[in-house]
């Protein structure tokens, strides 16, 4: 099987592939490539500057007088010569996009036809002749010369160049390749077309090899090193015509037309190969575009970044919990440290208060009591209660602060998971977590309420004691009052000092107890939170695992499906590229 039929078969299979994938939009492209591949017509266009002998060369090549030839510019229309059993000549005219065809009755005077039609809106002559050279589907296109002052000639030629398959660029042996010729070659032909440089009128040149070398070096220098092997074929149309007339083999040989024919045949092969390459590339490109959305789908399906993120968080949570439940874990150490710090701070404050109360504040209180012993006891009690309340507030705030500092932070909760779009069946009791701080406060303040009672109880004993002690102390105070008040004050102070100190020491002791208790409360609170945390984690983990398993199994099926398609596309591309 040759390359062409191989490629044809692969195109047919690609059609199936494309239809299966519901990509019917790609089918017309594939059909276009099939058409390109199976196009047997090759357009060989002869172009070059004006008066280079293009038409004469075509006539000599076909050995037929078909193109108009004159000493003056004769070709003003594109002329396409193709094979036909029956002779015909038609003109293509009208507006671009709405071209019309009309038969030309009499084509015997081609020069006159070119001249007559030049001023009309004719674009092209289509000529059919029974010429063996054209039988394989080759058409030869004669074109008006470029570079003259008639811009329409340039336009027509430039218009057809992109449509041609092979270009014969004609230059003249009596003139070196000019800048304008090089520019045309470089800008219009070289990069897109297979071409042959034909140096016509070689009979005018003594050293044609030098001419060929000169042309080659100019092309390499101006267009590029990759054009080093572009065929440059000197020919003599004159000698070929001599041969056609006289059949002298020497004329044929010296005309070099056989060589030109050989080069044209070679270039056609190169062209055919190039067509196959172009079709191959085109199909591979089509297959790529068939594959592209599948790739995207795979990518999307394989995209588990959300799960990855959740997994990461879960792992972190897990290690966090593990750390929290360890004995002598950080939080416990920290709690102990903070509590002991708080204790020393509190005790310190209480000590200060005791000294203050015994030495300074008591004086004012005595003054304020105005010798009323009941009132005095009440004031002192009030003062002590105030101290205890202050301490209570201080401790409560501090304990809460400590708790807040060390209570475990939740890394992952249900909300997180829901936000990620993960479907959950389990509700987490969020409220509990939210209100835990309040709970603690209640617990703590309950302690302190008791502490006040304790203090009050302590104080009551001396007052009652005082009352029971009777009037001696009382009387003493009353008596003293009238004498030296300063002396009295000291006596009263002395009378209460012991009780005050006792009460404060009790308070101190109690505070210590409270702190120890608070520590316990906080510890237990945190421990219970850790347990909640752990159970939350377990629940979320379960959800995650279920979800993860579901997605993976779902995707796997889908991805496998797509992958199978992609594989068959890849396989097809491989086959195509191997052709």
């Amino acid at each position, binding site marked *: 099987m040759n390359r062409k039929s191989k490629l044809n078969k692969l195109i047919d299979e690609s059609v199936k592939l494309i239809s299966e994938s519901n990509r019917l939009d790609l089918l017309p492209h594939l059909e276009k490539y099939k058409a390109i591949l199976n196009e047997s017509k090759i357009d060989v266009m002869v172009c070059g500057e004006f*008066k280079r002998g293009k038409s004469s060369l075509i006539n000599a090549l076909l050995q037929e007088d078909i193109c108009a030839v004159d*000493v003056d510019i004769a070709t003003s229309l594109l002329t396409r010569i193709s094979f036909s059993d029956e002779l015909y000549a038609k003109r293509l005219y009208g507006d671009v996009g709405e071209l019309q065809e009309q038969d030309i009755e009499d084509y015997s005077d081609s020069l006159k036809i070119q001249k007559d039609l030049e001023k009309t809106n004719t674009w092209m002559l289509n000529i059919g002749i029974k010429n063996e050279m054209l039988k394989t589907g080759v058409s030869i296109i004669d074109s008006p010369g470029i570079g*003259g002052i008639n811009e329409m000639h*340039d336009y027509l030629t430039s218009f057809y160049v992109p449509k041609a398959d092979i270009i014969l660029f004609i230059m003249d042996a*009596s003139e070196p390749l000019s*800048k304008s010729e090089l520019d045309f070659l470089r800008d219009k032909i070289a990069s897109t077309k297979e071409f042959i440089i034909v140096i016509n009128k070689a009979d005018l040149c*003594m050293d044609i090899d030098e001419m060929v070398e*000169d042309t080659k070096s100019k092309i390499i220098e101006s267009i590029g090193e990759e054009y080093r092997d572009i065929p440059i074929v000197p020919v003599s149309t004159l000698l070929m015509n001599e041969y056609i007339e006289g059949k002298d083999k020497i004329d044929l040989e010296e005309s070099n037309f056989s060589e030109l024919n050989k080069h044209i045949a070679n270039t056609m092969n190169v062209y055919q190969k190039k067509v196959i390459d172009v079709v191959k590339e085109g199909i591979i490109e089509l297959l790529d575009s068939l594959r592209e959305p599948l790739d995207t789908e795979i990518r999307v399906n394989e995209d588990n970044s959300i799960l990855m993120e959740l997994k990461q968080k879960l792992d972190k949570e897990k290690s966090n919990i593990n750390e929290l439940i360890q004995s002598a874990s950080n939080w416990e150490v920290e709690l102990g440290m903070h509590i002991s710090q708080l204790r020393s701070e509190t005790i310190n404050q209480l000590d200060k208060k005791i000294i203050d109360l015994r030495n300074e504040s008591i004086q004012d209180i005595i003054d304020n009591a105005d010798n009323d012993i009941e009132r005095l006891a009440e004031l002192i009690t009030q003062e002590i209660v105030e101290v205890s309340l202050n301490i209570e507030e201080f401790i409560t705030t501090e304990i809460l602060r400590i708790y807040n500092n060390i209570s475990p932070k939740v890394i992952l909760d249900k909300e997180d998971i829901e936000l990620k779009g993960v479907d959950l069946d389990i509700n987490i009791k969020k409220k509990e977590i939210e209100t835990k701080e309040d709970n603690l406060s209640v617990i703590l303040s309950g302690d302190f309420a008791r502490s006040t009672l304790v203090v009050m109880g302590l104080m009551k004993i001396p007052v009652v004691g005082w009352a029971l002690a009777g009037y001696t102390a009382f009387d003493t105070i009353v008596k003293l009052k009238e004498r030296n008040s300063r002396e009295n004050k000291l006596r009263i102070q002395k009378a209460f000092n012991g009780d005050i100190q006792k009460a404060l020491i009790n308070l101190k002791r109690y505070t210590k107890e409270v702190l120890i208790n608070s520590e316990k409360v906080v510890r237990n609170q945190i421990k219970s939170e850790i347990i909640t945390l752990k159970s939350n984690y377990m629940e979320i983990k379960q959800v995650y695992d279920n979800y993860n398993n579901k997605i993976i199994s779902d995707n796997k099926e889908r991805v496998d499906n797509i992958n199978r398609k992609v594989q068959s596309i890849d396989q097809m591309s491989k086959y195509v590229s191997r052709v």
Partner: protein
Amino acid sequence: MFLHKKSIDVLISECTLLIKGTSLEYLNDDFNKIKDDITSPMKIAIVGEICSAKSTLVNALLGEEDAVRTGVKEETFNVSWLYYDESCKKVTVYYDDDTSEEISFSLWDYMANRKDQSRYAIDINYLKVPKVNEVLKQFEIIDTPGLDAINNIDSQNTRKFLDKHVPDAIVLLFNRGISKILLDQLALYQKNIFNQMTPLNTVGVLTKIDNLWPGESNPLEAGNRVAKRLMNEDILSQTIFDIYPLSPAMALGAKTISSKDIEILTKLSKVDGIERLLRSEKRFVKSDSSICDADKIYIYNKFTRYGLHLLLGLLDWNIDTLRNNILFNSGFETFIKSIYAHFGKRSYQIKLIKSLYMVKSKVNGLKNDACDSEVGVLREIDRRIQRLMKDIVDEDEIELLRVIYSGMHNFTIDEVEDIRHICGEYGSSIGTRIGLGIESTVDDILDTIKSKYMYWNELDIRIGRFQENNYPRIVSKLYMSLNKEVIIIQENMESLNSYLYKDI
């Protein structure tokens, strides 16, 4: 001619007066240069595409085989300005930086041509080459490198030169027909050349017509056909007086034909199937014959294959017959006649127009930076130059000439002669313009003008006043204005006579 000379003197003295005592007094040098310019030989530049045989044409014009170097590829690299000088034996090289140096003739070739491109090539503005050749007494010839050369420097060198030196006239060569590139390249010289290119000072040459043979059995005739069609292109008829088909190589060959050539030709005539050999240069040189290869190449290049075909076809081997035949078929005769008729007789007019144009553009350029009082003066000078230029170039004359040269007319031979005369093709004196000899009196002149005017006026009326292309009307108008000129002179003469014979 008389009037022009007088007018230019008047213009110069008027302008000198206008600038006297002003800051513009330095312009005096430019005014006086007009006078120098119009007395020096006419400078003709040979401009054209690559390989259009410009240098060969220069050699043919001078009738010297090796006046300037020639070759098959792009050869001429720098501008060479050939002038007449018996005493000077050195070529002067003018560099871009306005310095110059004298070199020997042997170095000229080295510097002007592609071979051994020297480091000088780029810095040279042009080479001034003295030659003892009668042709150069009338025309100085400027040989230029081809336009559209791949090596851009060649074109640049032509442009560099033309930026500084404006030739009086241009011979424009093209190979197969006029290309857009050539027109574009010429447009690049717009400032100094394209504005200057008028049918008055530009002729075209369809060159290397020898290459048309054997495809065309009569290349000259074929060339004429192409030339005629080209002259129908507006862009050309507006800038070129006419196009002449020409084979510079054959012309040079004819002019330098020698007894040695005849010897080789004689041998050639005995070679069998010579016509067949002439179909290809290579075949010709490689053929077996008693002639050595060097001689074959020499004779082929000298006469071209068409030339050889002509020569070998002649029966009379008299050197003059050979020369004349080749010269005629080269198209050179028609060309040179036209050059002399067109440029020669008109050289004064062409040079004057050019000089005036140069001063005019300088004056116009100065206007931009001038103060108010100067602008007034410059505008006045510009106006006067403009007026004089209009007097000198009569566009109607050029139109008429083109018509009769194109052959697109129904005039009789006598009528054509009338037109040639009145348009100054035989000289610009009043007598010559009406076809009278120098002995004719003023009355003869007036009578002739009158009768010719009547004749052409009648033709004019017959055609119809408002008809397009009413050439007789143009002719009758020319006679009318000539009549006026004569009467003015006559009046001046009478006053001169009365002055001369007046009693003191």
